[in-house]
């Protein structure tokens, strides 16, 4: 039971009703200005044939762009590349992060060093990452090929051979970004209550049993979160691929975001690029909903 007289309560409520929107207003302005408006504008453009040069008359084209997108082999192959990259990168980005976190958490000496070392690549800007790996991947006498040569293997065209380029991009991405997932896992591990382990130890459970029956189930929520975030991040891959291979060789690493960029900004076809963006957007939404459903069902 409240002891505050009703009149006072009403004015307090009225005041917060007025100040609340004021506090969120700055965010709302930016949200509308830089997300809702462009989103709507992009959707409109996807139904026109507007060109970046401003010379296309921007005439209404109906569903022509979407029809073209659905039959565009390049769009499908770049979507395929995006899918391949997502599968190849998401799995190690979850598994490796978990293994790294478990190793650090199980009490290696010098914990701060491991934490720092695992997380540090994540702090690098993509332009630095690109420079480092371009050097390591150098064809001919690059460090990686020299190492292969030292054990009697032939050098690999890391970024120039269609067989290896996607793997090389995945390698760079995992090296660069795994630190973030590692930190999430480490935090989750530290939140697992000690008494569960103590109880299990009293019951005579070994290390493996504790891992399977306590640690991993306790991490399920975090794994779900990481998996969702990771799949979305991998689907949106662009910068490291653009810098490392520009989508090559032979378009074998070109993700759909780069195809959108190429179509819109170097091919000047804004209308068509918008249509592909919306096709991709739709795919992302469907995937996200499916993933959330999957994980929330498991939670329940």
């Amino acid at each position, binding site marked *: 039971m409240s002891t505050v007289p009703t009149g006072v309560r009403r004015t*307090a409520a009225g*005041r917060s009703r007025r*100040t609340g929107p*004021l506090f969120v207003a700055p965010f709302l302005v930016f949200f509308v200005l830089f997300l809702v408006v462009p989103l709507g504008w992009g959707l409109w453009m996807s139904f026109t*044939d507007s*060109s*970046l*040069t*401003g*010379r*296309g008359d921007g005439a209404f084209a109906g569903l022509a762009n979407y029809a073209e997108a659905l039959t565009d082999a*390049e769009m499908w192959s770049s979507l395929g590349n995006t899918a391949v990259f997502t599968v190849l990168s998401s799995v190690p980005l979850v598994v490796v992060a978990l293994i790294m976190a478990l190793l650090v958490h199980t009490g290696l000496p010098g914990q701060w060093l491991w934490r720092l070392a695992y997380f540090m690549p994540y702090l690098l800007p993509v332009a630095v990452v690109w420079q480092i790996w*371009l050097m390591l991947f*150098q*064809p*001919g*006498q690059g460090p990686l090929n020299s190492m292969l040569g030292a054990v009697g293997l032939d*050098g690999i*065209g890391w*970024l*120039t*051979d*269609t*067989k290896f380029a996607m793997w090389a991009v995945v390698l760079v991405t995992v090296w660069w970004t795994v630190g973030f997932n590692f930190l999430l896992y480490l935090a989750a591990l530290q939140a697992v209550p000690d008494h569960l382990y103590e109880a299990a130890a009293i019951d005579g459970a070994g290390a493996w049993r504790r891992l399977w029956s306590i640690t991993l189930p306790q991490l399920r929520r975090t794994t779900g979160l990481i998996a969702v975030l990771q799949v979305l991040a991998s689907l949106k891959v662009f910068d490291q691929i653009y810098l490392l291979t*520009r989508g*090559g*060789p*032979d*378009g074998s690493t070109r993700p759909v975001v780069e195809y959108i960029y*190429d179509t819109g*900004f*170097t*091919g*000047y*076809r804004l209308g068509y690029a918008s249509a592909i963006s919306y096709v991709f957007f739709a795919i992302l939404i469907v995937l996200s909903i499916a993933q959330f459903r999957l994980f929330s069902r498991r939670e329940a």
Partner: protein
Amino acid sequence: MPGRSTSRRALLRGALFGASAAALTPALAACGSVAGAVSSDADIQFWHLFSGADGALMQNMIADVEKRVPELRPRSTVLEWGAAYYTKLAMASAGGRAPDVAVMHVSRLAGYAPGGLLDPWDLDLLAEFGVARDELNPKVSALGRYDDKPFAIPLDTHPFVVFYDRDVMDKSGLLDSQGKLIPLENPENFLEAAAKLRKDTGKLGPVVGVFSDTAQAWRLFWGFYSQTGGPFDLSEKKPRVDEDKMAKVIDFIKKLTAPDCRTMDYPAAIAAFTTRRSPFVFSGEWESATYRGSGIDLGAAPLPTLFGRPATQADSHTFVLPHQDDPDPARRRGAHRLVAEILTSSLTWAKAGHVPAYLPVVESKAYAALDPQASYAPAADHPALDPQAWFTGSGSDFQARMCQALQSAINGSASTGSTVKKMLSEIDFFLSKPNPA
């Protein structure tokens, strides 16, 4: 608690006041600076894409112009060359915020002039400032015309040439009595000479770095293909090309690169030459400053004519007037004057390695004394520019895709036949798209 709510309101008011003050301050500061030194209406906004050694020379030339003609106030903006530069230029013109004058590769004209993104030059005005129409290289000047109007005033030609170490080449008998490369008339000839060079020196033969670069492999291919005289017509929905001749050139490139530089990238090839591991490098002339600095007895020549007739892949840096709806006449005049001043002082530009388009410079004694620039100047007489289409030219996606196809042939992961097919399917892809320009 009244005390708390008052303070919250005060806080809010304070925050709003603070925010608006913060928002106003830079605006006021900007007002001051616009009136001050940052720029004024009389300044000539000049966009270009030169960095590195050429960039420094261009900066010098502009500084000299400012000294000679104090009333002309060029403000140059340097942007990184490539696809992004051309996107920015197109957007600036389309969006009505175009610079007064900009640099553009003449090979990109087809994507800009027809769409109205550029304004034509006034040749009489240029003549008034000291550059007559017949004083510019007629070949590249002609390429800068569209719809019979001059849209691009050439500054230079920049061919893809060869550099060699005179000492080493001489010992292998590959130089004539004047220290020039002996004529090697066909691919077999050239490969034999390369093998002899390798044997005599125990070092690498000719090198070219095609990896980690979006144009190099195409430059090599296009120069040699142009020598065959085969067609490469992209004006219809179906490309008209000679597949046999394409295959012949690709075969030669594979054999040329196989022993020494099958996976060599652009910087590695430069390093191989400057550290004397190879005495012969296929290269853009714009690297000549790098090579001169290495202390090699440097020789240079146009691309050897191995397929019948002389031709060298080349492009030309030109000046263009990005379209303005309502150009200020004084600034337009200023743009013409700036370009005339740069052209007449382009001996400085020749030092970067480029072949100036302003003929009085190329014909001068001072230019003839420039070594090795003078020795590849004839390459500007046979420039093989990219095939004409809205999607081709320097820094284009087209070049990047052609290079990727060629790289697969060079590193041995694709056969000659499949490379020709791949190049044609890439061309089909571009031709299937509507021209947005």
